[in-house]
C-alpha cells in the first residue's frame, strides 16, 4: 500500500510514467519490463534499432495496444489500458509513423477537426447554426488558422491534404496534433523521409512547441544527429528492453548502447553523411 503511494507521489510530478510495462504479440516480446519516467516540459527521444519496440511503446501510451503487464501514468492517473477515446481529453496527442491525415478534408479542416472533442453544441445546433455552435466553430477555425500560421501553412489552408507533398503533410499532421494544446505530445518518427532542410525546420518547430505550449514531447527518431541536438534525455530500446536512459552525453558514453545501436549508426554516418 505504502509502495503504491510512494509511486503515486513520484508519478504525480511526471508528465508520463511507464511502470514495468510488457507487451507481446503471439509469444514474441515487443516490450518487456519497461520503466520510464518523462518529466514535464522535457523533450525525450526514444531510439533503438528497427523492431526494438519504439512504436509499440507509443501505441501502448496512446491506447492502441493493450499491454500484458504494467501501467501507464498520464497526468497523475494510472491506466492498465489507456482509453484512446479519452486521449484528447487527457491532453495527449500523437502523430503517426505513416501519414494519418484525412485526405478528403482541407488543410484547415484537418487541423480544426482536432478541436471537435471540446465542442458542447450537438449536431442539431450545428445544422441550425445556433449562436453557441457558431461561436465554437469560429473559435476553432481561428485557433486552427493560428496554428497553420505557426507552421507556415497558411498559404495552403484550403488545399485538400492529399494534393500536398509528403513533407508538408507531415507538418499538417503535427499542426493537427498541437491544435488542442496537448500537455503530452508523442511523435512517431516525425523526420522520416525528410530532407536535411526540412529536418532542420522541423527541429525548430518541435522546440517551439515545447516552449510555447510548455508541452512534454516524446519522440521516436532514427537520425542520431537530430536526437542528440534536440532531446533533453534519450531512452534506448533494444529487443523490447530499455538498455539505456540518460542525457545525450551519457548515452554517447554508454557501452551497451554503443554496442547495440550507435556503432551501427556510426557506420552509416561514414557511408551516408548523416
Amino acid at each position: 500500500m505504502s509502495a503504491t503511494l510512494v509511486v503515486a507521489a513520484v508519478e504525480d510530478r511526471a508528465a508520463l510514467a511507464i511502470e514495468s510495462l510488457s507487451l507481446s504479440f503471439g509469444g514474441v516480446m515487443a516490450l518487456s519490463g519497461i520503466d520510464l519516467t518523462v518529466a514535464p516540459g522535457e523533450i525525450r527521444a526514444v531510439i533503438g534499432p528497427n523492431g526494438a519496440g519504439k512504436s509499440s511503446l507509443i501505441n501502448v501510451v496512446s491506447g492502441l495496444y493493450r499491454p500484458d503487464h504494467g501501467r501507464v501514468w498520464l497526468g497523475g492517473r494510472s491506466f492498465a489500458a489507456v482509453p484512446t477515446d479519452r486521449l484528447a481529453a487527457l491532453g495527449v496527442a500523437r502523430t503517426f509513423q505513416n501519414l494519418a491525415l484525412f485526405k478528403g478534408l482541407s488543410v484547415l479542416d484537418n487541423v480544426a477537426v482536432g478541436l471537435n472533442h471540446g465542442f458542447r453544441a450537438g449536431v442539431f445546433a450545428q445544422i441550425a447554426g445556433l449562436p453557441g455552435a457558431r461561436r465554437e466553430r469560429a473559435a476553432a477555425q481561428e485557433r486552427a488558422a493560428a496554428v497553420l500560421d505557426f507552421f507556415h501553412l497558411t498559404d495552403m489552408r484550403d488545399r485538400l491534404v492529399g494534393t500536398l507533398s509528403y513533407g508538408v503533410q507531415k507538418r499538417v499532421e503535427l499542426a493537427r496534433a498541437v491544435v488542442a494544446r496537448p500537455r503530452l505530445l508523442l511523435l512517431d518518427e516525425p523526420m522520416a523521409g525528410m530532407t536535411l532542410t526540412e529536418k532542420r525546420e522541423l527541429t525548430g518547430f518541435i522546440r517551439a512547441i515545447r516552449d510555447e505550449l510548455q508541452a512534454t514531447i516524446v519522440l521516436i527518431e532514427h537520425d542520431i544527429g537530430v536526437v542528440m541536438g534536440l532531446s533533453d534525455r534519450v531512452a534506448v530500446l533494444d529487443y523490447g528492453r530499455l538498455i539505456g536512459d540518460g542525457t545525450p552525453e551519457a548515452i554517447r558514453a554508454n557501452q551497451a548502447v554503443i554496442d547495440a545501436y550507435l556503432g551501427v549508426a556510426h557506420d552509416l554516418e561514414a557511408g551516408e553523411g548523416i
Partner: protein
Amino acid sequence: MSDIAIKTGRRSLPGLSPQAFGVAALLAIAFGVVPLVGSEYLFDALLTPFLVLSLAGLGLNLLTGYTGQVSLGSSAFMAVGAYAACNLAFRLPGLPFLVDLVAAGVIAAAVGLVFGLPSLRLRGFYLAVSTLAAQFFVQWVFNKIGWFSNDSASGIVTPPPLSIAGIAVTSPVGRYLFTLSVVVAVTALVWRLVRSPTGSALIAVRDHETAARVIGIPVLRTKLLAFAVSSFVIGIAGVLWAFAYLRNVEPAGFNLDRSFQILFIVIIGGLASLRGAFLGAALIVIFPLGLARLGDALLGGLFDSGVLEMSQRVVLGLLIIVFLIAEPAGLSALVDRMTRRITPWITPWITAGRA
C-alpha cells in the same frame, strides 16, 4: 435558399460565386419556369422520380460517400419511411401530413440506427453484407405482418391523397412542386450538416478511423449518427415515393434492385458530393428512356421491351465499370472540370450583371 447560395461562395468572390449563381438559377428555373412549361408526363414520369431518387442518393451518400460505410439496404429504409407514413396517415388521420413526413423519417432513422449497430464491429465488405440483413428483414416484415399494410390481401397499400395544410395536392405539377420543396429543404439541411464540424468528423472517420479516435472524435457515435441521418433522409425519400410518385406502396417495390439503383446513383454521381446524387439520379432516370428511344430508332420493331430491359442492364453495368475505372469521383468531378474551364468566361458576365 439565397442565404445558402451566398455562403457557398464565401471564399472566392464577394457576393455570388459562379457556383452559388448556378444553384440560384437552377432553383429559379425549377420553381418558376418548369411548372409553367412542363407536361404531365414530364412531372410524373421524369421529374418527380428523379427528385425522389436524388434524395435517396443523397441519404446514402452521407453514409457511404462521407462516412465510408457501405450499405446495400437503402430501399429497406425507403420502405420503412413509406409504410410508416401510410400507417400514421391511416391510424392518426388528425395529424398534418408534414408531421407524418417528419415522423416517418424519424422512424426510419431509428430502424437505421439498429441496423447500423454492426458497423461498430464490421467494416467494408462484411458491413455491406450485414446491411443486406436490413434489406431482407424489412421486406419480409412488411410481407409477413398484415398490420403494416392494413391487412390488404395483395400487400399493396394505397396511401390517402396528398394534402398540405388542408389543400389537396392532386395535380402532377402540384406533386412535383411539393416533392421539389421537400427535396430542397432536406438537401439544405444535409448541406449544413456536411459543412459543419460534425461533417468533418464524418470524413475523418472515413479517411482514418484510428487517427479520428486519437484526436477525440467519438467514432462509434459518429458512425451511428451517419446511419441515423442517412436513414432519415432515405426514409423521407420513401414517403415521397409512396405519396407523390407511385401513390401506392408494396414491399416488392423496395427490393434489392432498388437498393442497388441508389448505390449506382451514388457511384455514378460521385461519392461524397451532394451534387453527385442529383447528377447520378438524373442519369439513372433519363438513361432507360434515352436507350429506349435510341433502340427504337436504330432497330425499330426488333427492340422490344425484353431486349430493352436486357440492354439496359448491360449498358448500366458497363457504365458503372467505366466510371469506377476512369472517373471514380463520378459525374460530379466531370462537371467540376467543365465548370472550371467555363468559369473564367462567365464570371465577368455575372459580375457585370450584378453591377
